[in-house]
């Protein structure tokens, strides 16, 4: 059952081939059996899941259940789940049980989707390797000595290891696409504002966006149909009609103009990754797409701009974790300042503290213009690059990340080396554009991701192309060893 895609599960549930309870039991037992190897899931909500599955089966029996009713799913532990610990991968929230649901969680709950549990992640989504989690690193199912990527590494590894057919994730600088690429699955970061951020623990508010992870583009479309909603509670959530993302999957690719940014094939790109991506581009060309070389001249500035804006916003977003209202508080504070400083230094990990310090620096008096102000201007240059590109092409396609999954600890000493992992994904967050990653090859036994960047709110076209690509390739069908 775990090899079925979500689309297949939906059919199976609706035709009563299997029940949601059976499905849920199956995935719960897989989590039970395999999670020890990967550490992808940090909270399992078995009782709740079975109860939800039972209710879903009743709705299915009644006949008018929503599409995803009865499908089991994992949520990244960044989404608040009522009554279920939401840690955000941090000691700071190790004891935090939210009294409310994130809108994303609520949408799935309404649709009868069964939550199996919560997935591991880099602490407060700050990381590209899942090594910063308070709950220990997630292991890549393709090579357990390698990272799964981050920050949504738990969701990606869980989907790759068939612990769930799909999972929710979030992407601030590549946190959906890079782990999807490294774990050989499909993942989509929608346009900023497409999915509500309510109840999603904030890292960098102007960049954060939630999206789905699954094995196929078709499944991502099904999940996005449920995730995307207009939400008054999030002022940055856009009130625009939401198309049926499944409806246009089968449109032919023929005639589509695909931009290939030359800056994404420069030094630093692993030759094996480049080869796989070039081959994928050739596949698309063979399907009738027209490849157009384009330039995104300010690409090199995206990493530095990101590492000003994201930490700056994070430094303020994380000030609420002060030991007063919820979460961790240090033992026996000797006074108020001691409570603040020890709570935060004991509750936050090293990388989170580093980013708070950087953000504080970039916003402090005398540095604001040179850093934050400048980064915001660069952000506009990056957006202008894309606007000009999309005047000529329908989509932009390139590598998701520079190289396949790397070994644990191999970038541990140098934060900058780690930050460069997101070199191809960050620009879309800065511009607010949608991006996705689909598997397109294998290098050294590890998956390679193909990144598809779309114009604003053009997720349907991205999913269409990704789906068509998956009709002629089977990288998305490969399975890591030792999980069946």
């Amino acid at each position, binding site marked *: 059952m775990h090899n079925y895609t979500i689309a297949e599960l939906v059919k199976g549930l609706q035709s009563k081939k299997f029940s949601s309870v059976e499905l849920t039991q199956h995935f719960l037992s897989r989590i039970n059996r395999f999670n020890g190897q990967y550490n992808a899931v940090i909270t399992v909500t078995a009782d709740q899941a079975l109860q939800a599955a039972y209710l879903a089966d009743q709705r299915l029996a009644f006949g008018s259940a929503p599409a995803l009713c009865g499908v089991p799913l994992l949520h990244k532990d960044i989404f608040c789940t009522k009554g279920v610990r939401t840690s955000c991968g941090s000691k700071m929230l190790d*004891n*935090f049980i939210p*009294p409310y649901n994130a809108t994303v969680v609520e949408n799935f709950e309404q649709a009868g989707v069964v939550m199996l549990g919560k997935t591991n992640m880099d602490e407060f989504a700050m990381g590209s390797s899942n090594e910063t989690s308070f709950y220990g690193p997630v292991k890549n199912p393709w090579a357990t000595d390698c990272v799964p990527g981050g920050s949504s590494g738990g969701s990606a590894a869980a989907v790759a290891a068939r612990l769930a057919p799909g999972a929710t994730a979030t992407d601030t600088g590549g946190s959906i696409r890079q782990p999807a690429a490294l774990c050989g699955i499909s993942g989509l970061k929608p346009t*900023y504002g497409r999915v509500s951020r309510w109840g999603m623990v904030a890292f960098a508010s*102007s960049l954060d966006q939630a999206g789905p992870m699954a094995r196929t583009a078709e499944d991502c479309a099904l999940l996005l149909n449920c995730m995307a909603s207009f939400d008054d509670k999030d*002022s940055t959530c*856009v009130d625009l009609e939401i198309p049926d993302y499944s409806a246009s999957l089968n449109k032919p690719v023929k005639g589509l103009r695909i931009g290939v940014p030359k800056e994404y094939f420069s030094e630093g790109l692993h030759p094996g990754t480049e080869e796989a991506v070039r081959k994928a581009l050739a596949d698309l060309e063979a399907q009738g797409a027209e490849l157009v070389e384009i330039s995104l001249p*300010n690409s090199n*500035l995206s*990493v*530095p*701009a990101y*590492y*000003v804006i994201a930490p700056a916003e994070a430094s303020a977003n994380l*000030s609420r974790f*002060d*030991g*007063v*209202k*919820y979460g961790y*508080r240090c033992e026996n*504070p*000797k*006074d*108020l*300042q*001691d*409570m*603040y*400083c*020890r709570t*935060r*230094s004991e509750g*936050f990990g090293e990388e989170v503290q*580093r980013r*708070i*310090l*950087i953000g*504080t*620096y*970039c916003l*402090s008096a005398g540095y604001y213009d*040179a*850093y934050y102000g*400048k*980064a*915001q*201007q*660069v*952000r*506009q*240059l990056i957006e202008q690059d894309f606007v000009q590109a999309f005047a000529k092409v329908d989509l932009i396609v390139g590598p998701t990340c520079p190289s396949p999954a790397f070994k644990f600890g191999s970038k541990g000493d*140098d*934060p*900058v080396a780690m*930050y460069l992992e997101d070199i191809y994904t960050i620009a879309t967050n*800065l*511009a*607010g554009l949608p991006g996705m990653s689909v598997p397109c090859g294998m290098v050294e036994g590890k998956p390679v991701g193909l990144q598809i960047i779309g114009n*604003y709110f053009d997720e349907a076209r991205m999913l269409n192309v990704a789906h068509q690509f998956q009709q002629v390739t089977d990288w998305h069908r490969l399975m890591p060893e030792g999980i069946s």
Partner: protein
Amino acid sequence: MIIERHEIEKLATLSRLSIDEKTITDVTERLSSVLDLVAQLQSADTVSAQGIFRPFQVAQRLRADEVTEGNHRDEFQAIAPATDNGLFIVPKMID
């Protein structure tokens, strides 16, 4: 780019973080390398781009002034580190 030790100390104070003596040199080094990275921004020609970037120039939505939130004190304070008589309790604030 060199970031001075006293600057790190000031940032830590502003951020309410206590960085212990042992790691302060290490943090100084790592922060400096990150700041070297972001220093590349200075070379950008940004005359054509001013102000704050926002993905969509739409206006802030406004909410009707109606009370829809009730009293959830017990629920909220059940997950608070320290409360007493309905108050959140913190070490004495001195003015």
